[in-house]
């Protein structure tokens, strides 16, 4: 009978992992819709192709080698057909694999509308096989950083991956964007930023809601256990805080945009929701719901400032604001943890953040650079004018609609 109880606990934990993982998988649709809504019509089919392609690549490469590098267990999942200790190993892999896809998804938005599709896929192969898994091995995997130091010694804490997943994706994106340059027409000769409007805001909004929903799996699943009173309470609190932070992000971004721009800019409200979610991801377990709302709200304000700052001051062209949402706010998420978690220090968080950023940024930069030399990473100016849908995919996203 003891065994039956164990089996039930095992089954519940496994089931919990699978349901949470399915929600995270759903985030792939969220990123696709968000990005498809924020680019121009002529680049829509390509970004959809990019998103479904990168998800498939991430799932395959992480299965082949990435999971082994991050957590051990053998390439090709050789070690996970067997059973786990308190839940099925396969469910753990399933939950982890959708995380690497999330991190990769962040990149696709930032490099949108001008990157060669297959260069992007080549990058995705390396990012999901090595760059992310190695960084993941230092953090969640517990390995030491190139044998030099161990992040756990500094008490680095990143509950569900504000840094490990989101800032990592943003760091890779930043490296790519720097090498790629802004979209044609984004800055005039005087260096003034010229807005390029997203073509389909209902899609972008849908994407945001999908991400919001999926994030319950992202954070909720990161408790890694459900089948006890303690873990059940923890998961429930994580759900509440995740939701609260997203709500705080929306309200703050909306009000802030209204005050600053005089208009309730929908795209900023969407970025605010995502910023709230990214902000709470490093520590959704310790704050109260009110504090979670505030952490999200700070994220919501930060993201508006950061998007404008990247766009107008740094002249870094990030069509969907991915670097701000996942990078800048990801960092804020890491640094906010010590506010409510006394086991965590600012310095430890900073060391972790720097470690992740330096590794991912440099490694990604080198890979982008190599790809640039070998196959090129940017489409020609003429192809950019015509839209990458035609040149990369040979079709249009809305062939019947009259569009610019």
């Amino acid at each position, binding site marked *: 009978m003891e065994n039956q109880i164990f089996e039930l606990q095992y089954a519940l934990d496994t089931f919990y992992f699978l349901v949470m993982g399915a929600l995270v998988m759903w985030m792939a649709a969220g990123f696709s819709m968000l990005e498809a809504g924020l680019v121009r019509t002529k680049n829509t089919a390509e970004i959809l192709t990019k998103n479904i392609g990168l998800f498939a690549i991430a799932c395959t490469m992480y299965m082949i080698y990435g999971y082994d590098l991050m957590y051990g267990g053998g390439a090709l999942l050789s070690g996970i057909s067997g059973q786990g200790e308190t839940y099925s190993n396969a469910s753990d892999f399933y939950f982890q694999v959708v995380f690497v896809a999330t991190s990769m998804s962040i990149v696709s938005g930032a490099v949108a509308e001008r990157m060669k599709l297959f260069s992007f896929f080549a990058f995705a192969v390396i990012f999901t096989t090595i760059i992310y898994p190695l960084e993941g091995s230092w953090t969640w995997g517990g390995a030491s950083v190139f044998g030099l130091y161990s992040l756990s010694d500094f008490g680095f804490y990143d509950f569900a991956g504000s840094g490990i997943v989101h800032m990592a994706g943003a760091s890779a994106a930043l490296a790519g964007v720097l090498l790629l340059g802004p979209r044609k027409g984004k800055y005039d000769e005087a260096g003034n930023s*010229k*807005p390029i409007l997203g073509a389909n805001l209902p899609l972008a909004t849908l994407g945001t809601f999908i991400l919001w929903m999926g994030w319950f799996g992202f954070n909720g699943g990161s408790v890694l256990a459900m089948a006890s009173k303690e873990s059940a309470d923890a998961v429930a609190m994580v759900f509440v805080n995740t939701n609260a932070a997203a709500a705080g992000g929306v309200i703050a971004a909306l009000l802030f945009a209204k005050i*600053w*721009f005089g208009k309730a800019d929908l795209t900023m409200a969407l970025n605010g929701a995502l910023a709230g979610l990214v902000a709470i991801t490093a520590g959704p377990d310790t704050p109260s719901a009110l504090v979670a709302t505030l952490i999200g709200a700070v994220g919501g304000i930060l993201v*508006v400032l950061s*998007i*404008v700052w990247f766009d107008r001051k740094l002249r870094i062209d990030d069509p969907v*604001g991915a670097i701000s949402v996942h990078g800048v706010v990801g960092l804020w998420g890491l640094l906010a943890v010590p506010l409510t978690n006394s086991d965590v220090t600012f310095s430890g968080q900073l060391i972790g953040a720097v470690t992740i950023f330096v590794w991912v940024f440099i490694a990604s930069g080198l890979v982008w650079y190599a790809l640039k030399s070998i196959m090129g990473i940017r489409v020609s100016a003429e192809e950019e004018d015509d839209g990458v849908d035609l040149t990369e995919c040979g079709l249009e996203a809305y062939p019947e609609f009259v569009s610019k």
Partner: protein
Amino acid sequence: MKMVTAIIQPKRLDSVRQALSEINVTGVTATEVKGFGRQKGHTELYRGAEFVVEFLPKVKIEIAITKEQLDEVIESITSACKINGGKIGDGKIFVSSLEQVVRIRTGETGPDAV
């Protein structure tokens, strides 16, 4: 025969259509266009960056008529579009000459085909 082309505010299309049918204009073709005249576009903010909306949405209507109808048609469009004593953006009317009109269905040509 004449071709009258008017560029009007989209929100006036309905009243123009009614005004025209009251004076027995039996055919109209409408196109969605973008334009600017004295009415320049306004400045908008998108994600914190300013931009000028150069072209504003307009509707172009084309009406083929006989010479005799010309004044009445211009009058009719003008009064349907001129609101509150005339505001910038109210629109513009262009008149050109038509050499021939053919009704495909019957093969009729000339004023009868209008």
